[in-house]
């Protein structure tokens, strides 16, 4: 359990508040722990937020599908209700499928767009509305190095439509809101070893080749 040993609050990030999506496992669970350790209060949003996390006065859990606008509204309202401000939004929720380009179905395309793009859109729009009132804020989104740097044999073409979309909108929003004091950045991992968190195997994770852990993820 992540919450069994709460670290002492550090001073530099005192009273800061963050929202982390896709919080239930892997990078998301690590982000929740990292932000708590850095002294943030956190609203953690995911399909099954309570699965690996326990709520506390500094950690609010919201369950629901990121692609569902209602659950996104619930998340942002929880942050405002409990913490009054949103300093940082971390858009971590995302899915990735790898298969030959010709085999991607419309349903898979729609699922990728729903989670990776609509989830980003709804969550970030609501957070930015709050950040505009505060006249400051920042959003960090997890994308994928694979979007700009494809690897022969890792067939993620349609998934990367959404990840490259996130890279582009990050550039656009950085300029649109520069004067309002809101920053937009992205982090693009390649392969991340998520074994340390011992989560159940995610069906959306992929294996690239013999050198890569089964639990590693490319995007």
């Amino acid at each position, binding site marked *: 359990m992540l919450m069994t040993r709460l670290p002492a609050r550090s001073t530099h990030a005192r009273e800061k508040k963050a929202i982390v999506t896709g919080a239930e496992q892997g990078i998301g669970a690590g982000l929740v722990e*990292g932000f708590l350790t850095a002294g943030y209060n956190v609203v953690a949003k995911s399909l099954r937020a309570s699965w690996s996390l326990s709520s506390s006065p500094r950690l609010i859990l919201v369950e629901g599908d990121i692609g569902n606008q209602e659950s996104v509204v619930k998340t942002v309202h929880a942050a405002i209700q409990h913490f009054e401000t949103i300093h940082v939004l971390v858009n971590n929720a995302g899915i990735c499928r790898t298969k030959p380009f010709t085999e991607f179905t419309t349903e898979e395309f729609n699922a990728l767009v729903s989670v990776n793009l609509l989830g980003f859109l709804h969550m970030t729009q609501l957070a930015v509305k709050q950040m505009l009132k505060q006249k400051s804020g920042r959003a960090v989104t997890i994308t994928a190095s694979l979007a700009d740097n494809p690897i022969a044999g890792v067939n993620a073409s349609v998934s990367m439509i959404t990840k490259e979309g996130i890279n582009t909108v990050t550039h656009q929003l*950085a300029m649109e809101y520069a004067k309002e004091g809101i*920053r937009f*950045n*992205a*982090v693009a*991992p390649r392969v*991340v070893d998520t074994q340390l968190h011992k989560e159940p195997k995610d069906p959306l994770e992929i294996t690239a080749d013999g050198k890569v852990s089964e639990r590693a993820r490319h995007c």
Partner: protein
Amino acid sequence: MGKLASVQDIVDAVLYLAHACQVTGEVLHVDGGAHAGRW
């Protein structure tokens, strides 16, 4: 870099961007240099 990135490597990058008040519009690759070329 001869090893996979860890979850902590990604968390460190996100926390950096959360605090770096002069950085915006950036896509920060945390991939052991893979985006820079073959090694």
